[in-house]
Every structure is written in structure tokens, then in C-alpha cells.
């Protein structure tokens, strides 16, 4: 299987269709771009549209909301929305809740999806999780290479002037704050 790294898009297509004004009734009736646009009008008929009709089974009732599907074993606490009638049979096991962030998530999931408290608590838990991640890294004697994780090398490669300008401004602000703080301590 070919794997071309660093390839870019070629110049491949025809020029755009000009517009620039609202179509009149006769223009609308006569419009046909099929000569210049591949596939134009091919799904014009509703029967060609997969989403028509939108509701493919309007007669269904509530008994099929939770069909009998064998349940996956839960290796740790799976947070369930309070708006679910039961725990769905299949779920992700990506990241078990941990530490303080996990406790906050436990709290967040006590609220329904209609409550701002639920979502804000989960967002706060995410930030706490980030700090716990750094502590965990250091605990394993691993200093995270944050500039690399942020992909900042690409700024130097593709946006050098702007990156240097922003870095200089940031450095200036830091130095300025340090000077003010130093002077205020002396006085």
C-alpha cells in the first residue's frame, strides 16, 4: 500500500460556476449545470435521497428502546446519565475515572443533562485531570515535553515571523511583570 508523506493537493478541477445575482423564475426553470459539474442534479428526485422520508419506521413504540442485547462486563464504574432508563449494554472503557477528577465526575453525573451544573462540573474535572496528569508524569520521573506535545515546532517551520513576534510580546510581558514585582518589593 503506498504511503506518500508530505504530498499536497494538485490543481485538479474546473473553474467555479459564476453567480452574483438571484435567479429569476425563468432562469430557475432552465438551470442545468450538468455540462460543467459532474453529477449535477443526479439526486434531484426525492426517491434518490437516502434521508427521504426522514422517519423510516414511524409505527415503532417504546418496547424497542432497550432491545435484549447481552451486557458487557464493567471493569470499573461506568458513569450513566440519569436520563437513561438502564445502563446500555455496550460502552467504552477508555479512561477509568481517577483521583479528584474522578470524584468530581461522580458528582457531575448526578445531575441530568439539562442542568448546567453537570457540564460545568465535568469541565472542571477535565482541568483537574490535566493537572493530575502532569503530577502523574512527574511521579513516574517523566518530564512532559510540552512544546513538543503542542506541536510548536510547526510554528517555526510555517509561521516563523508571527511566532517570533508573539514570543517577544510574551517575553516582554513576563519581564515587565518581574520588574514591577521586584520594584514593588524594594519599596
Amino acid at each position, binding site marked *: 500500500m503506498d504511503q506518500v508523506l508530505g504530498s499536497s493537493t494538485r490543481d485538479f478541477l474546473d473553474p467555479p460556476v459564476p453567480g452574483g445575482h438571484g435567479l429569476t423564475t425563468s432562469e430557475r426553470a432552465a438551470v442545468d449545470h450538468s455540462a460543467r459539474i*459532474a453529477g449535477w442534479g443526479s439526486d434531484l428526485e426525492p426517491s434518490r435521497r437516502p434521508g427521504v422520508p426522514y422517519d423510516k419506521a414511524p409505527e415503532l413504540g417504546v418496547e424497542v428502546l432497550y432491545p435484549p442485547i447481552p451486557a458487557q462486563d464493567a471493569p470499573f464504574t461506568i458513569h450513566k446519565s440519569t436520563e437513561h432508563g438502564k445502563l446500555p449494554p455496550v460502552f467504552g472503557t477508555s*479512561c477509568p475515572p481517577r483521583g479528584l477528577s474522578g470524584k468530581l465526575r461522580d458528582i457531575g453525573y448526578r445531575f441530568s443533562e439539562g442542568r448546567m451544573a453537570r457540564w460545568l462540573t465535568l469541565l472542571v474535572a477535565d482541568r483537574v485531570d490535566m493537572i493530575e496528569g502532569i503530577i502523574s508524569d512527574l511521579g513516574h520521573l517523566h518530564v512532559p515535553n510540552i512544546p513538543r506535545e503542542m506541536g510548536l515546532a510547526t510554528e517555526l517551520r510555517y509561521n516563523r515571523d508571527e511566532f517570533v513576534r508573539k514570543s517577544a510580546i510574551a517575553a516582554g510581558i513576563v519581564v515587565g511583570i518581574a520588574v514591577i514585582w521586584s520594584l514593588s518589593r524594594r519599596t
Partner: protein
Amino acid sequence: MLAMTYRGPYRVRVVDKPVPEIEHPRDAIVRVTRACICGSDLHLYHGLVPDTRVGHTFGHEFVGVVEEVGPAVRNLKAGDRVLVPFNIFCGECYFCRKTLFSNCHNANPNATAAGGIYGYSHTTGGYDGGQAEYVRVPYADTGPYVIPADIDDDNAALCTDAYPTGYQAAEMAQIKKGDSVLIFGAGPIGLFAARSAWFFGAGRVMIVDEYDYRLEFARRFAQCETCNFRELKDPVWHFKKETDWLGWDSVIDAVGCEARGSALQRATGIRPFKLQGGSAVALSWAIDAVRKGGVVSIIGVYGPVFNMVKIGDAMNKGITMRMNQASIGRYLPRCIEHIQQGHINPKDVITHRFPLEEIHEAYHMMSSKLDGMVKPMVIPRAA
């Protein structure tokens, strides 16, 4: 195996993780051969989606080869080349039977409003995603689609989300022959929506964005008109004027929660405050730009709390608003037919390719719109 992991806002790291195992009889394990970074992955990357945990592997656009199947999976076998729709769905529930696969009720314990999605936080089920060498595929007897021999991996990867999503956005816009269609966002979804709008018989298509390189790309890929709203003093006035004051028949919001163009929306929806589910500038402009009785189609992603949008104007204008996460399985067969008939070549939107080990650079470049990036593809070493 190598896998991308989230470390906090704007930070990702490639680490060694255990190869996933079968956890349910309907699971499969897929070796990833191609994965893409989606524009909506940036919402995770920017720390905007609640319950995005450190260590989570993103990636909901991937294709690969089946390595192993659970005992209940009869329609796949090891060695099958599959594309995996980004929705995880059971195929049996109330919503799946209506083919609203993105709304499946049995794949996401964490929320009822959202369905299960690969690599998209615990708010969509807590499943690891495909920006890795291997991935667990739940409900493998309903989701994965064996890739036809005449569809290559690059095109197949675009069929897992971006292309059918753009197609659905255009379909939801209820386009009739000769209709004028305005699309906010010249990212891959907007590009595919524009291209698909022609399939539905549009008479006129225009894409709006703030990046000239993306608009140039849109003119060539979608053969449509373009507009840079940064050059306009009053964008809504301009959109109306463009239609000789009628308004657009259909408007598609392919931007979602990180829209620019209003300091108030950004301040209250993104930073420093998160008082609404993102910045709803594009949606508000869509309501303004559509004609009375027209259709607004929302495919851009917003957060799970309320947004400031012009619902009063929407009511007064008699607008139809249609929206949903794309149900890939519903649209995939027709989208693949378009590829086979030569109407579209989705992989033309891929501008950059990265080895998985350098995915941190891909994320930063996509987030900062560097080097003319439109769509990055990631290739694991096990491909």
C-alpha cells in the same frame, strides 16, 4: 501499540498502549491503515468538550483491516478491509430501526442526547478512537462496511464521516432545482456540502469563510462562489444583497461552536467564559441570510448547553431548521455510488499526510491553519 493520547487543551502525545481486546461478543478489533483528523476533533483538542479525559485516544475517521471478531459477529472475518462509520450503533433500537444511527440509544451510557462516537470523549461513550494502530470496534456486526475493491483506502477514510456528513447537510437543506445555497465554513464538511448541493440540483452555491486559502480551495474543489466575511463591513447585508434581497433558499452551518466574527459570542461561548455551548455566529448569520420560508441545515457541532441564537427572527421568518449528527450508514451506499460514477473524488481534500508518531504537529497545524492545511491524514506504522 502506538496511540495518540490527549494530555490537556492543545496537548497530545503518542504513547504505547495495550492492544485493545474483545470486550463484548459483538466486538471486533481493527488494525488501522488510515485515519484522519476531523475539524470536530479540534473541539476536543481545545478542551471544549466536557468529560474529555487525559489518556483518551481521539479519532473517529479511520479505515483498516479486521484482525479479530467476537463470537457474535458473523458478517466479518479477519482480513476484511473495512471502513468504520464514526457512529457506534446497535442496529436494533427504536432509533436504529428508523436508520437514525447517530441517535442509537444503546451505545452511550454517559448521555442520551448524543450517540456513541469513537474517540470523542466520555460524553459520547468513552470509546478510544482510531488515531492508533489498533481500535476496538463495538457492534461490529452492524457498523463496519466492507470496502468495495474499486474504492481505495484514502477515499474510504473520507467516507467514514466528512463526505457523508457534508452530503447529509446538503440533503437536510431540502434543495430543489435552481435553489440558491449558502454554506458557512470552507472546511471539509462545507466543501462536501457544497459539492453535494450540486447533486441535489442547486442553481447557485456560495461558501463563506475567513481564510483566503480555503476559499481558493473551495472554488476549485466545489466549483462554487466564495466570500470572505473579513472583507465585509456587514456580512448579513452582503448576503442579502447577493440574492437581490430575496435571501438564500437554503443555508448550511458547517462551522459549529468555534465560529469567529463576534467578540461577544466568542467571549461568552469559548473564552474566557463558557456560558453557552460555543460561539453561534454562523448559525445566527444563517438565520439572517436565509429567505423567509427557507431552510437552515445545521451540521456544525455545538456544546450541550444553550446558545444565544436569533430564534425570534427564525420564528418570524417561518424558517425550517433541520439538524443531526450524520447517520453515516444511511448515506454511505449513495455516497459510494457517486464516487464510483465519477461524480466526486473525496480524497482530493487531503492536503497533508503524517506518520502517527508526528500527530502532535498535525493537530497544531490544523488548529492554527498552517501551510494551507485543509484535511490531514494520519498513517500508522502498522498500516
